[in-house]
């Protein structure tokens, strides 16, 4: 057996997957060839490591934990911010007024943008537009809209959907008869979902967020809707 043949068989050799005659030939070659012996030394510890991974399948990171984690960090940051020296703080009422003014500019006369902290904490420095969505199916959702240069990033927390991944839901930003899709998602096994979607529509160009379920080609049914107040 030459070096090329021996090396190509080394993977199977360390995994014990060669026929007995070929196994003996590889062993004989390695005993006389320092280069191939060095290559064998790099690989021969792997089966022991692999044994620890037998049967392990990496699950998806739970979306609910991500939501709780980000909320918690935002709350703790808010607490920390409240302890800053007075000169660096902006009074809550003033921040809200500024946010509303920005919202007024962006959304127009019929809509108000809210800049809210979580659970009574200080408002975040980035404007956050929040709304609740509801519908006839029993599902509920909360959405946060982050205005960006290219449109809006939509963070959506939904619960009460039909559990399982069969159904595809679409998030739309709408005004009158005009609609822009922010993308699609599926629910988890508990009928929940947390998704971050992006739409080219800018805050101010739409007045409601709607979630529809796609039941088939050209078939959809309304699930949730929320107006930007």
């Amino acid at each position, binding site marked *: 057996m030459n070096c090329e043949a021996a*090396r*190509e*068989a*080394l*993977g*199977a050799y*360390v*995994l014990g*997957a*060669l*026929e007995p005659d070929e196994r003996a030939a590889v062993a004989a070659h390695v005993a006389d060839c320092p280069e191939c012996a060095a290559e064998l030394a*790099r*690989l021969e*510890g*792997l*089966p022991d*490591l*692999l*044994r*620890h*991974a*037998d*049967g*392990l*399948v*990496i*699950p*998806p*990171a*739970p979306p*609910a*934990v*991500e939501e*709780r*984690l*980000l909320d*918690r*960090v*935002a709350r703790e*940051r808010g607490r920390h911010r409240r302890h800053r020296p007075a000169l660096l703080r902006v009074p809550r009422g003033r921040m809200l007024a500024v946010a509303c003014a920005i919202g007024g500019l962006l959304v127009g006369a019929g809509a108000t943008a809210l800049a809210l902290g979580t659970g009574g904490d200080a408002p*975040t*420095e*980035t404007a956050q537009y929040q709304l609740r969505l509801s519908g006839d199916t029993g599902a509920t959702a909360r959405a946060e809209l982050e205005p960006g240069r290219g449109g809006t990033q939509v963070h959506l927390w939904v619960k009460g959907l039909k559990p399982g991944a069969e159904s595809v839901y679409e998030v739309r930003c709408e005004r009158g008869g005009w609609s822009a899709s922010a993308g699609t998602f599926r629910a988890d096994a508990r009928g929940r979902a947390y998704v*971050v979607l992006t739409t080219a529509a800018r805050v101010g160009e739409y007045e409601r967020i709607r979630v529809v379920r796609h039941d088939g080609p050209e078939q959809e049914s309304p699930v949730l809707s929320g107006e930007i107040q």
Partner: protein
Amino acid sequence: MTASHRSAAADAVLVDRLATDETGEAMRELYRLYGGELFGFALNALGDRGAGEEIVQEVFLRAWRHAGTYDPQKAAVRTWLYQITRHAIIDARRRASVRPALPRHESDVETEGGPTLEQSMLGWQVAAALERLTPEHRQMIRMAQFRGLSMREIAEHTGLPVGTVKSRTWYALRSLRLVLEEMGVVPG
């Protein structure tokens, strides 16, 4: 995106951003990179989904609070997060043991002659390394190592020539070795 296409340096930058990032994006990215495997590790160790979720949340909060003390010279981010998870699991087991009203975890493996936490931690990192291989390479390792098939049997099963199966298995193990070195699981 999984943690598969990132360098240790990019991870270290991400942890550095954790401390100052006001948007939550650094935390979100770190969680999406490592939340799955750490949740698998915790779930496997505690045998309860809710407890596993609590552990993972606690791990990332601890990482956020202590991001300033992270030293990339001492450990890769993955290793650091696994160590935090290991401590959190030990704490959770300790809490459960002093509160007998709580149910014992069915897969409290260390008390039943199963793998130790260290072995389990190693297993999850190797599982993560396998995820970084190409599907073809992963298939060869799974069939030979986990299903115990010979090269000839794999060739019959896949319809590939035996020579191809053999060389693909060699390349698969070489790739795995490199990935484990990058992850800091085995010395480079």
